[in-house]
Structure formats: C-alpha cells, structure tokens
C-alpha cells in the first residue's frame, strides 16, 4: 500500500447511550479505491459519519488520522476543508439556497478567496453536462424537489467540484435506476482519473463498482471489520452473500 491517507485505529463510536462501532481498524492509501460492505445496520454509515465528524456520533475511543494528522477532535467543516467529503445517503433539502450558490460558498470557504464567477460557472456547467444533469438544476434550491437520482447526482457534482482527497460514498447507488447508476459511476471514475483522490465506497450492491478498479475491500459486521481483502472479496460476497463469511 502506498502512503496512508486515512488511518483509523481501534475506533469506538456511540450514538446517545448505544455503542455502534466496537473498535474499527481501517487504512486507506492515497490514490486508492476501497469498498466497505456488510449487511444493513452494522455500522457502515456510522463509520462514514464518524470520519466526517457528525457531532451526533461521538468517538469514545481510538483515533482517526488523516494525512498524518489526528483529526479525531476536529470540527466537521475543518475536516471538509482538509479534503474529506461525504456523499450523503439521504441528501438534505435546503430551501432558499441554490445548488450553484451552495457549491460556490463551499469553494470560497476552502480557498478563503472570492471565486472568479465566470470560471466557476463554466466549470459547473461542464461538470453538470458530464453527469447528464440539466443546467437548470444549478439555479434550483439545493435538493428541493429533486428526484432520488438527481439528489445523488448533485452529491457527485459537489464531489467533482470540491475535489476532496478522500470521498466517502454512502450508498450512493441505492435506489437508482440503471442509467443513473451508470452516470454516477462514470462521475466517480472521472473523480479518480482527474484528481487521484481516494474513495471509500459504502455499498451493499456492486453495481457502482463495475466501472472502477477496486484496490481493497472490507466487510463490516456488528460494528467491527471482520474481513479485509482485495477485489476478489467483492466477487466472493456477490456469489455467496455475507452469511458465507461466518464459517471463516
């Protein structure tokens, strides 16, 4: 593995009084694609939120090292500025703020500078075209009245515009039709190709992975990682399901 971008050691996470993650270890190198699989309700999304820094998910033990820096205590927005991005499973609707204005604000916060409007608009337009998104969405309120597919595309659009070092895709492919999965998958491939940012893809299907080269796969069950492997692990689970793992 190349130099580690993300290193998670013995991570324990609670929501209110309930511990969800019971000591997770995970390392993601630079310029790598990782897949995190596992049955529903085992804590995959919790891990995504914990890495991103959702205050509802409190880390009670262990550490998260990003780019050599301990970010376990860092606020969400500081982590985002350092290059962590989460594609939400259920992106929030924000009335009154357009998709375009939202991305612009995020970019301006990152650079601390005003953007050149012309350049920004141009890049936004191009990127939207790549994702087969109608231009009009740029001036619509963020996620308001978007279909499930459009919401997911808007997340991928944000990823491509913000160019994070690590993007966590939480069930980005769920609930999408075949065409939408293909478009999203193409967006993800472009992200890897252009920025060489790393990916942690949380999924329980494999449709989104078809266009991607997977470097490593991890299986989570009941709040711990139970298996680590390469791309072959994805195929194994595809064939036999998660129950096969129990016999190991």
């Amino acid at each position, binding site marked *: 593995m190349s130099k580690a971008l993300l290193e998670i050691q013995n991570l324990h996470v609670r929501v209110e009084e309930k511990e969800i993650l019971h000591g997770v270890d995970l390392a993601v190198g630079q310029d790598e694609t990782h897949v995190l699989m596992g049955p529903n309700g085992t804590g995959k999304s919790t891990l995504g939120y914990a890495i991103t820094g959702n205050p*509802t998910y409190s880390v009670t033990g262990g550490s998260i090292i990003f780019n050599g820096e301990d970010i376990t205590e860092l606020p*969400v*927005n500081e982590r985002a500025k350092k290059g962590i991005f989460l594609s939400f499973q259920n*992106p*929030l609707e924000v009335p009154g*703020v357009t998709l375009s204005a939202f991305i612009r604000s*995020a970019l301006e*916060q990152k650079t601390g500078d005003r953007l050149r409007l012309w350049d920004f608009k141009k890049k936004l337009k191009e990127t939207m075209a790549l994702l087969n998104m109608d231009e009009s969405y740029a001036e619509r309120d963020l996620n308001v009245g978007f279909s499930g597919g459009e919401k997911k595309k808007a997340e991928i659009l944000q990823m491509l515009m913000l160019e994070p070092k690590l993007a966590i895709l939480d069930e980005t492919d769920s609930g999408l039709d075949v065409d939408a999965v293909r478009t999203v998958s193409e967006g993800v491939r472009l992200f890897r190709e252009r920025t060489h940012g790393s990916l942690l893809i949380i999924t329980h299907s494999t449709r989104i992975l078809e266009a991607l080269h997977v470097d490593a796969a991890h299986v989570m069950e009941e709040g711990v990682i139970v298996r680590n492997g390469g791309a072959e692990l994805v195929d194994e689970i595809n064939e036999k399901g998660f129950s096969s793992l129990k016999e190991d």
Partner: protein
Amino acid sequence: MNDTILINRLPTRTWNRLGVNETAIAWGQADDLGEEKITAAGQTERLEITGSGERGEKTVDIHAPAGQTVTVFETLRAEKGLLVRTALHVEKDAKVRLVQIQNAAQDSLLRLETSGECAENGQVELIQVLLGRGDVYSDGQFELNGNGAGFTAGIGYLGQKQQTVDMNLVVNHWGQKTTSEINAAGALKDDAQKIFRGTIDFKKGSAGSVGSEQETVLMLGDGVVNKTVPLILCAEENVVGNHGATIGELDEDTLFYFESRGISAAEAENIMARAAIERLARTIEDEAAQAAILSELEEVL
C-alpha cells in the same frame, strides 16, 4: 402631535398578556403624499414611494379590469415615518401582482396597509420583502368574495439590531372554492423583535375552499423575540385548512450538511438568513427588482 394608536389587530382576541392582540404605536398628523391610481392592464407599473418630513401618507389604488393582469412594484423608501395604503380591486378573472420592497433608512418607521377584494376567479399575488432597516408594521386584509378567487402571499423578512417587524395578515374566504396560501419566512438577528399574525377565515358559504399558511423563522441572535400567531377560523364544513410553523436555530442536520462541505456555522447562518429573501426574490421573475433586492440585502447584512 403624537397619538398612540392601535394597529394590526388580531381578528379574534386571545390572552392579553401575550401582547399579540394588537400593537400600539405613536402616530399623528401626516403629510399627504397624494394618491396614485393604476388601472393600466397587462403591464408593469413601478412606483418609488419616498417619505418626506416627519410623516407621510400615500394612497395607491390598483384596479384590474375583468380578465386583465396588473403588476405593480412598490419600492418603499421611508426616511422617517411613512404610511402606504394600497387597495386592490380585482374583477372577474383578473389578477393583481403586487410586489412591495422595503428600502428604508436606519431609524425609519414604515407602515403598510394593504387591502384587496377579489371577484369571481380574481387572483391576488402579494410579495413583501422586508429588509432589516427601520421598523415595519404591515397590515393586510383580503376578501375573497367571488367563487374561485385566490390569494397567495410570499413574505420574506430580515430583522436585526433593535428592529421591530410587526405583521398582521387576514384572508377572508367568502366565495366557494376560494384558495389562499401564505408563506412567510425570515431570519432574526441581534435583538430584533417580530410578530407574525396570519389568519385564514373560512366564512359560512365558502364550501370547497382551501387555505394554508406556513411560517419558518430562523433564530440567530441571543436577544431575539419571536411571536407567531397562526389562526384558522372556520364556519364551513367542506373546507380544508392547514397551518404550520417552524421556529428555531439552524437545525443540526442542515448545519452538518453545510459543515461537511467546509462551510462554517457562522457562514451557514449567514447563507440561510439570506436564503429566505433570495428565494422570494427569485419568484418575482423581474430582473430589475431582483437586482434591487439583492444589492439592498448585500448592504443591509
């Protein structure tokens, strides 16, 4: 001479100690700023109403003849005290679109008295943009007389510093199958005080009517006071009325979403305070008015 007068009366009283039944303000003899009569159909009128002297009083009379649409933009420049009375007369199948944009001086007092009556299928679309400078008292009384008459209101406000934003909006459904929809959204900063009273009144005979009202208040300052009084009065069986209100800080989920994109809490609050106004500005679909609102917003915030 200053007298204390009572304005913005709630159509039916409730507990006095809540201080929402009416509002007392100081007002007196005002300069007559004249009357404007608008009947031109199918076009857009732009009025710049500027207060002069201690107090000024302006009357605007808007008449939409049968089947015609009239759009009026009022830019309200209160220097000290300004009262603008706008009366809408909407005939059968006609429509009036009234956009009121506050552009006031720091310590001004703006009073709006807006009223309207709609004949059969007559429609009123009211947009009020109240932008964080000076005190505002807005009273609206609308009568949906004819069958199928309709009313929509979009109200966006920003309250800051020691500002008072005091609103009262009453829609009376008289005709059958009349509709009303009130959306008010705003943000309060610093020590701003705001009252929104919204009343949907289904009179006997208004069968088949539908009314809804929704208010969203974003509380951003430690000294803010928000009062929300959404009334539904009903004397008719076959109607549907809804109201809802959401009051509070930026909710955790929204904040997390913003922060996960690297936007700080303070910036997120700023964006959301502007959002209510910007959103309303977009619905106006008039570039000049939009630009005016956005530049004013830039200046005020």
